[in-house]
């Protein structure tokens, strides 16, 4: 009898082994998956854009001789004391509670050494952070954990958080295992219980109320502090326009690649838009209102390299913010802890169960023993190094495009590799003059 070749096992593209594993996990546990970090799916991103560089029509600047400035002013619209940063890469808000005290200190040390700002988070302002941050942005969140007028006044700017990219429309969650005495005390809650940060502010609803809320915060701080409004990447054109209308000095726009300390995986992966799609919409809103560069735009969500910084700025951002990348620079997910990641059932660079408080790197934990592993001085130095490298990389690209300031980068310096990225970023596909959605084929 003739033996025919058998059909080899074929996995479904719909029911992949990963999907099936999640179905089994849900069936066994009865609860959705909670994790930290941002979306892990493949998305159109800055990698899909390229700079054109100088040519006959544009000449470059000499890398080791000619200046390419990197500074940025934030809050020039209404604040008496706008912020001046040496580099346009800021540290995004991450809470004490989600992070350890020493990790917050390291963020302050690194940011200050590199000439930039750091940001508090849900859970209030810590002495570690205020003490080690030359420029500290104080987040004003729906939970108002730890909120008080003294910290508002000793902040350098105030960031009203409406949403974040990892979960636009979602509140925060700090599970009981991370609620130490100190965290509980700062939040006026009992130790060991899950702390849900509300998804809406308790005392304002909508842009008209927001305008009055901003007035109140300005009055309390004598109109000194820049007021930022942070939104998740959901409806960036309208959110930016409404933030400007409400009186923001700065709009912070966070795409879905932005991280969170703990949220449902389904939320992280299925709500929000990639940052690439958000920036041009926000810039257009600012331009339509005649406020581009007057109200500054900080963008975040998946910024990893100086190239990402340069691309975000070429699309019209005034500055960027990093969160996940900063944690990695500090030592998060480092293969040096591989043995322990394995014990937790994961591996370096994939660990995302930050909410469990068992971070081998001692960064996203309140466990005193694990926290001891992390040296805030060394962490701060690593963050400073990383920020410097990103800045040098962005300058390298800007000089190649003939720009003497990072802010002079422009969409005309870019082309796209894919139709999706071209449509989202509003730049032509490489080798063509076609911008899908804007110009004819």
């Amino acid at each position, binding site marked *: 009898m003739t033996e025919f070749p058998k059909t080899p096992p074929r996995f479904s593209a719909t029911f992949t082994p990963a999907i099936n594993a999640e179905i089994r996990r849900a069936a066994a546990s009865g609860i959705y998956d909670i994790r930290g970090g941002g979306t892990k799916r493949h998305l159109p991103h800055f990698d899909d854009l390229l700079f054109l560089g100088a040519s006959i029509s544009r000449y470059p600047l000499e890398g080791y001789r000619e200046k390419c400035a990197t500074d940025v002013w934030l809050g020039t619209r209404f604040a008496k004391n706008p912020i001046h940063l040496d580099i346009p890469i800021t540290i995004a808000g991450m809470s004490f509670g989600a992070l350890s005290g020493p990790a917050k200190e390291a963020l302050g040390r690194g940011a200050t050494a590199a000439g930039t700002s750091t940001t508090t988070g849900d859970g209030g302002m810590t002495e570690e952070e205020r003490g080690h941050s030359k420029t500290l942005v104080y987040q004003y969140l729906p939970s108002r954990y730890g909120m008080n007028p003294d910290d508002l006044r000793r902040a350098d700017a105030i960031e009203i958080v409406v949403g974040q990219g990892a979960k636009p429309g979602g509140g925060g969650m700090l599970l009981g295992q991370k609620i130490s005495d100190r965290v509980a005390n700062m939040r006026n809650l009992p130790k060991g219980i899950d702390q849900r940060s509300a998804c809406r502010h308790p005392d304002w609803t909508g842009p008209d109320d927001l305008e*009055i809320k901003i007035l109140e915060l300005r009055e309390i701080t004598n109109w000194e502090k820049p007021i930022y409004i942070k939104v998740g990447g959901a409806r960036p054109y309208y959110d930016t326009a409404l933030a400007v209308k409400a009186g923001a000095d700065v709009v912070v726009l966070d795409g879905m690649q932005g991280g969170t300390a703990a949220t449902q995986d389904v939320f992280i992966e299925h709500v929000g838009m990639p940052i690439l799609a958000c920036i041009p919409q926000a810039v257009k809103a600012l331009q339509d209102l005649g406020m581009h560069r007057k109200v500054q735009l900080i963008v975040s969500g998946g910024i990893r390299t100086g190239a990402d910084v340069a691309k975000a700025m070429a699309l019209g951002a005034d500055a960027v913010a990093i969160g996940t990348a900063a944690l990695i620079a500090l030592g998060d997910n480092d293969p040096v802890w591989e043995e322990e990641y394995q014990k937790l059932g994961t591996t370096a660079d994939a660990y995302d169960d930050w909410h469990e408080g068992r971070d081998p790197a001692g960064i996203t934990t309140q466990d005193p023993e694990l926290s001891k592993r992390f040296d805030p001085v060394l962490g701060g130095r690593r963050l400073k190094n990383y920020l410097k490298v990103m800045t040098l990389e962005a300058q390298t690209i800007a000089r190649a495009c003939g720009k003497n300031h990072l802010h002079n980068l422009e969409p005309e310096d870019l082309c796209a590799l894919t139709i999706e990225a071209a449509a989202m970023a509003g730049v032509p596909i490489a080798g063509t003059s076609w911008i899908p959605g804007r110009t004819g084929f």
Partner: protein
Amino acid sequence: MQSFDLGKEGLRALNSSLHALKGQTNMTAWEVINPKGAHAIAAGVDAPVDITVRGSTGYYCAGMNKQATIRIKGSAGPGVAENMMSGAVIIDGDASQYAGATGRGGLLVIKGNASSRCGISMKGIDIVVHGNIGHMSCFMAQSGNVVVLGNAGEALGDSLYEARIFVRGTVKSLGADCIEKEMRDEHFAIVEELLRRGEADHKAKPEEFRRYGSARKLYNFNIDNASAY
């Protein structure tokens, strides 16, 4: 008494004058005339002074107050005494939504009625309402005490943490995880003291109140409670 004409001199001048008081001044009594519903009146004061607002106020009057005693001789708009730290705010009339929201200390007295979400997310403030409170009051309230001489609206104390709620009248409905609890001696003492400080001891007696608090069943996520979330 320092008299300040808000209509003439403006909000910025008022608040910067009040912020300049650091507790070492003889100007301890202030009166604000012509408030005309302005927002953020006397927000961010941090001194042991007495401020009387002669008329009704807009949003966030006495926001983040520390130490000051602020009397509103009219009604208050949304978010009165929001995030108050200490001191006292006493309103002769009614209060709009979110009165005392996220307050961390001090005493808020509302002699009329309070609208919805009174004491939302409160973190240590004490609130005395002579009249009724609206729906969703004390939502996610974390700590502090609320004493209501009248009735409470729907979903009282939804997702409550450790705040205590005392209601003399009826409660239209309780929110998720909020239950009636026994009035013990220490609770009668709390109500008695708050009635006195809230200028209501002539209107009600502690034994007329019932206590509501958290059942603490939603403190840690449990899939069996999913329908409550």
